[in-house]
């Protein structure tokens, strides 16, 4: 059962991303949106953790990254999706785990 995890908090003010990565299984996808997009920006510990996470696919919601001026700083290997791409991700997975 492939799970789509969604994370909308910055990794600097919240442990949600760590909690998510601690429980996410290989084969799942993590979509970072709203303040969650900061986790994917280069030069951060979280981006390093993301790049090294085995078997987990990461995506960032482009409009949220763009709004925050970090679209050009998204680390290599992290897919950027638009709202339609978000919907596709939801449809492609068996369930969504919306982290709070």
């Amino acid at each position, binding site marked *: 059962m492939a*799970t789509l995890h969604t994370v909308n908090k910055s990794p600097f003010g919240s*442990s949600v991303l760590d*909690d998510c990565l601690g*429980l996410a299984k290989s084969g799942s996808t993590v979509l970072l949106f709203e303040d969650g997009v900061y986790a994917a920006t280069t030069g951060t510990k979280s981006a390093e953790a993301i790049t090294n996470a085995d078997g987990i696919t990461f995506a960032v919601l482009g409009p949220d990254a763009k709004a925050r001026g970090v679209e050009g700083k998204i680390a290599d290997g992290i897919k950027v999706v638009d709202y339609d791409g978000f919907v596709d991700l939801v449809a492609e997975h068996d*369930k*969504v785990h919306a*982290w*709070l």
Partner: protein
Amino acid sequence: MAKKFMYMNTKAPYGTIYALESLEVVLIGAAFEQDVSLAFIGDGVYQLTKGQNTDGIGMKNFSPTYTALGDYDVNKIYVEKESLEERGLSLDDLQHLTWEDEDEDWAEKDSIRLVSRSELADVIEDQDVILSF
């Protein structure tokens, strides 16, 4: 058909409304005869501590409600071991939650299952619906 619902409890009880709201939704899910499990991770483990007393803060102490969950057939309560240990807690610091097994002459059984992070990941994988609070 009953679905497997997992309620993920991630926040301490009185600083935000999430813990209380989760309990409300859990009871609703149970009333609709779904297969309900609860997980407590991170600060969520503080929801289950013994000895809560809210007399001084003007809020309802809802911790006794957890002891009633067994009567609603909510008896799969997973507590993440790592989260407890990080906070200097052990099972002895938590309320003793039990349920009565109808199939075994109403034998009283423990509801809390202490699981490692990786064991919990397997349990979550097996669910149909995950609701995070």
